[in-house]
């Protein structure tokens, strides 16, 4: 049984087909890379899986259960967490309080706020934000806010984690660290879908890659297969990237 199974998913905004008849399957413990040009529907697909958008057609099954059209907080309670392409921190909360929300409302919630705080500090440490625990989110840099969002999502103890351009804006050294962090998360029994524009990161991380173009899935396979796909090269990658 597939861990996550998306069938015939379709979403249009007015006349624009943002996602058209997309199928997707994901095995537990894998990292799925999701790539595609700007506006190809990657964020929309994540929004459909997490209940932030309702599809016009198609289904989403998670661990054998139909979760299509479920309210988004219920999708979260099933064990699917996400981060946002444009960060959405609780700006007037401290970093610690941000993470605590995930810890008291997520899976295996903390028994009380004191315990939630303790466990949240450990999670902040994992993303290297421990020294910012008592800093308000509005005073963090954009990169710190991204890591805060990751910590907050991890605090819900998800089974499936969707990252929307977590690495955009990082320099090569930071990208390497972020990849290391994502591998650690995978090793802690969390399945991931990773949306990125940085091809090197996607190739380095993913077990499988799906390519979207104009709302349609145009290729799927191992990173190497996808990189050699002529259609993908034409639509998205350009020759230079794949020849290396």
């Amino acid at each position, binding site marked *: 049984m597939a861990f996550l199974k998306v069938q015939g998913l379709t979403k249009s905004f007015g006349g624009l087909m943002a996602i058209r008849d997309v199928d997707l399957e994901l095995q537990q413990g894998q990292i799925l890379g999701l790539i595609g040009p700007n506006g190809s529907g990657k964020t929309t697909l994540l929004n459909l899986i997490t209940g932030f958008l309702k599809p016009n057609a198609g289904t989403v099954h998670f661990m054998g259960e139909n979760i299509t059209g479920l309210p988004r907080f219920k999708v979260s309670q099933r064990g699917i967490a996400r981060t946002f392409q444009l960060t959405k921190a609780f700006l007037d909360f401290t970093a610690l309080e941000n993470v605590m929300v995930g810890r008291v*409302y997520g899976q295996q919630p903390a028994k009380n706020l004191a315990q939630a705080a303790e466990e949240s500090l450990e999670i902040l440490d994992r993303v290297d934000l421990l020294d910012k625990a008592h800093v308000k989110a509005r005073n963090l840099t954009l990169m710190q806010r991204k890591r805060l969002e990751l910590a907050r999502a991890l605090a819900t103890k998800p089974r499936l984690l969707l990252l929307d351009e977590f690495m955009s804006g990082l320099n090569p050294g930071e990208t390497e660290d972020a990849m290391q962090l994502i591998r650690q998360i995978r090793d802690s029994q969390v399945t991931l879908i990773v949306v990125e524009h940085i091809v090197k990161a996607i190739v380095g991380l993913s077990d499988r890659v799906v390519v979207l173009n104009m709302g349609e899935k145009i290729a799927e396979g191992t990173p190497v297969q996808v990189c050699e796909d002529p259609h993908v090269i034409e639509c998205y990658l350009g020759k230079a990237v794949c020849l290396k």
Partner: protein
Amino acid sequence: MSAKRITVLALVVAVVAVLAALPLFVKKDSTINLACLVLLYVALASSWNILGGYAGQTNLGHAAFFGLGTLVARFTWLGGWPLWAALLAGACVPVIFALIIGAPAFRLKGAYFAIGTLALAQVLYVTVANKWPLITSLPARYLATYRLMPRYYLFLAVAVFTVGVAYFLVKSRLGLGLMAVREEEDAAESLGVSGLRHKLLAFGVSAFLAGLAGGAFAFYHVGYYPQFPFSPAWTFDTMMAVYIGGTGTVVGPIIGAVFYVLVKELLALKVVEAHLIIFGILFILVVLFLPGGLLEAWSKIRSALGSRAKSRKAALPAG
């Protein structure tokens, strides 16, 4: 327990003890009446703040829930119900109204909630005025035994209970979820927090407490027109008290209510004609220059004094 918590607890106990002993050394009815009014506004402001300050939903019809509390409690009490049952009924009926209006209004984003509550209050105001046009006065047998003390203690109990509920709610898991929804609803939902359920809970609790305050008012007042507690003035006085004190904190509405009622009374005595205008200007100044209310002003002054004291200390060894 930390030293700070012990200090706060001691302060709370002291304030409540002083208020409880007040009638022992204050014999003037007018002063006790004023104290009743202050306590009533503490309750109203704290209950409004649960939804307006913590959940970030501006209720422009708080008078509706206060009014429903007075209406139900007054008529059941005068109809022969024991006081506690009348008060309970007066607190529960507003909750039903809150859920009926909240469920659709919270689903629609934007100003629908503010407009919906405003409309509800206006509709009830007019309806009650039409349906019960006569003044409701205490019957002779109630008047014969009327004493101010039990009224004062009821207001005190309602105010303490309301502040207590507000405190424990916001210090709980639910309070954290409520504030998360206020801060960024999408993110809160992505972590498993239902925005709708939390707002409805806050609205229900807020309406319950407003209705309870209404019950105390119904027990207190000798004679008033039934529509009077539904008047929009109650909503706006309450909101002014909250904004003056500082929204989204437990202490803010208390300070705001005390300040608001006392200053308003003082102005009304001294400058009968212009007191509303003066107060209006004062209110605008507070909101414009101290968006966090008096509480923020106080913490600014304190940190300014603190940093001066620190720099003086730092200067000492050198000098």
